[in-house]
């Protein structure tokens, strides 16, 4: 049954049918071909996913991010990142990296991050003398830091398939995220030094920087508040996401005074659409997962790998290679939802902690968002920078190298994710 499923799914994907639809249709076609199982299973499995209380966190984290970044707070955050970095060599480029970290604490989406930051920062960086391809490469890679800093939508999805606590995953993502940001900042500085590019902007006074930090503080505090809320059991992840919306609404209405009905309406509708996109993939993956489990594919795969490759380090390497290949054509949510149920039992057989596996998966599939020749943040950034894909790809390699080093470190040093 699983072979039919894979064949039909591949054909539908080649026909450019959206992944969510392709998963639902392929699973339905497989059940119809098998003939003995009722098609009602498709409807039942889809329904089951809509009853998942933790998944209610998705729209509200998205809405909180949209509310915070769409108004004055987003501008203050960007000013803070820009001014704090402009005195350093390669500062304009590093601004994207720092902004990705601070925006990551509010939003949970790398694609939204690439678009929001790129449209503001890339034109400014180009005016500073940085080549379009380099700006695009920097933007495409830095945006992915977002999904390691809490709140992270891909980590919430991984918690759904693995059963690992969202609080543990959010905590585990911070150090790799900071490590990646540090590596990218050094890369930006190295590139600027090698090419002799100097910043023309005057450096800002400490007072001005402090003022900007105070104005940005409400957003900079958000990931800390989320983690504290989860760690101390003040509320469930879903309730924390709702409180994040209330926090964003209160800040916007009382502190920045830019809340309008239009902004609220736009944020909620945007969150609704994004939830529809992600939930359709979740619903489709659930039916596919049901069929794979019915065929005992995850167990058989884990048994096969553990008997074929005896060394756990090689198993982790094999998982990483497979994720890199899958991550190129497939987006993050379906890749996590399809491979998660297969990799979690495999990780258990080799003694790999599921929290560490979650960060490996999200980081690895995040790299897939800018791995040439196809990648969402790669395309968005190239389009904003008006750079050809070839130019962006040429400039991408130093950043790609840093990301691979961080991935290797996360894969083989448990202390980076489990503490």
């Amino acid at each position, binding site marked *: 049954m699983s072979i039919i499923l894979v064949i039909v799914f591949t054909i*539908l*994907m*080649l*026909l*450019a*049918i*959206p*992944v*969510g*639809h392709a998963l*639902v*249709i392929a699973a*339905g*076609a497989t059940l119809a071909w098998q003939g003995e199982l009722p*098609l*009602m299973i*498709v*409807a*039942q499995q*889809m*329904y089951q996913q*809509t*009853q998942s*209380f933790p998944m*209610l966190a998705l*729209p*509200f984290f*998205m809405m909180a991010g949209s509310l915070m970044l769409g108004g004055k707070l987003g501008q203050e955050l960007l000013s803070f990142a820009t001014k704090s970095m402009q005195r350093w060599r390669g500062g304009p480029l590093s601004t994207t990296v720092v902004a990705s970290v601070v925006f990551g604490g509010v939003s949970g*989406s790398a*694609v*939204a991050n*690439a*678009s*929001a930051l790129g449209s503001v920062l890339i034109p400014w960086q180009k005016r500073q003398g940085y080549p379009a391809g380099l700006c695009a490469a920097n933007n495409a890679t830095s945006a992915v830091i977002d999904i390691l800093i809490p709140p992270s*939508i891909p980590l919430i999805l991984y918690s759904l398939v693995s059963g690992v606590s969202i609080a543990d995953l959010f905590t585990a993502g911070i150090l790799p995220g900071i490590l990646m940001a540090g590596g990218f900042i050094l890369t930006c500085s190295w590139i600027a030094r090698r090419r002799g590019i100097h910043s023309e902007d005057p450096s800002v006074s400490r007072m001005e920087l402090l003022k900007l930090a105070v104005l940005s503080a409400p957003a900079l505090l958000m990931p800390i508040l989320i983690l504290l809320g989860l760690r101390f059991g003040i509320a469930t992840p*879903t*309730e924390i996401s*709702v409180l994040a*919306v209330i926090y964003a609404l209160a800040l916007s209405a009382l502190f920045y005074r830019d809340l309008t009905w239009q902004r609220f309406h736009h944020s909620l*509708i945007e*969150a*609704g*659409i*994004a*939830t*529809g*996109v*992600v*939930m*359709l*993939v979740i619903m489709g993956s659930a039916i596919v997962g049901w069929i794979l489990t019915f065929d005992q594919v995850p167990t058989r795969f884990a048994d096969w790998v553990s008997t074929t490759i005896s060394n756990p380090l090689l198993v982790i390497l094999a998982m990483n290679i497979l994720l890199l290949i899958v991550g190129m*054509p497939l*987006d993050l*949510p*379906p890749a996590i939802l399809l491979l998660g149920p297969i990799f979690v039992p495999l990780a258990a057989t080799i003694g790999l902690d599921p929290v560490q596996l979650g960060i490996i998966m999200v980081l690895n599939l995040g790299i897939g968002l800018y791995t040439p020749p*196809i*990648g*969402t943040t790669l*395309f968005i950034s190239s*389009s904003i920078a008006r750079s050809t894909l070839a130019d962006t790809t040429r400039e991408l390699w130093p950043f790609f190298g840093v990301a691979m080093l961080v991935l290797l470190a996360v894969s083989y040093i448990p202390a980076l994710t489990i503490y």
Partner: protein
Amino acid sequence: MTRVAPVPHHEQELATGGGTLAVANVIDRAVGFACRSIILLTGIALLAILTANVVARYVLESGGFRFAQELPERLFPWFIMAGVALAVQKGGHMAVESVLSRLSRNGARIMLLVGFAIIIASYAILGWEALGVADIVSIEKSPVLGLSSSYSYYALALGCAAVILTTFALALRVALIGPEAMPTPDPEETGI
């Protein structure tokens, strides 16, 4: 991967299009209005219930509202399915377009239309099955509010109907205008 190509100027062509395109516009407006209304109503209700429950947990001795898990579970499917249909309209669902982008304009048009036909037929079957399950589970009631499980399946069935209508409207546009009539989503609407 998500479609990120520049938006073609098909809006002008739509304005000068014939009756068929007017039908597509009417479908889109009706489905869009219904879905946006559902997202707003259910979204605000979910926000209010969940916030009130957190407050109630620390204020009331009962430790929160007993219905605070039940009602969101009944409302969330409506929120999701409205989002699914609206995302079809906005082109938000992620697709791998490596083959499509290599085809000629006519080839791409035919390929898209084949895909739309598959989606419409499949969702018609899925919607029918969802109604069947809704019938079966109508006797299952939630413990506190006594809400039937059928409501969630009706959301699934109506969501399928909205996907069919929206896909049909898209198919009309692609058939008459070409592949450039495909909508391009905002990055914020893709969710990753």
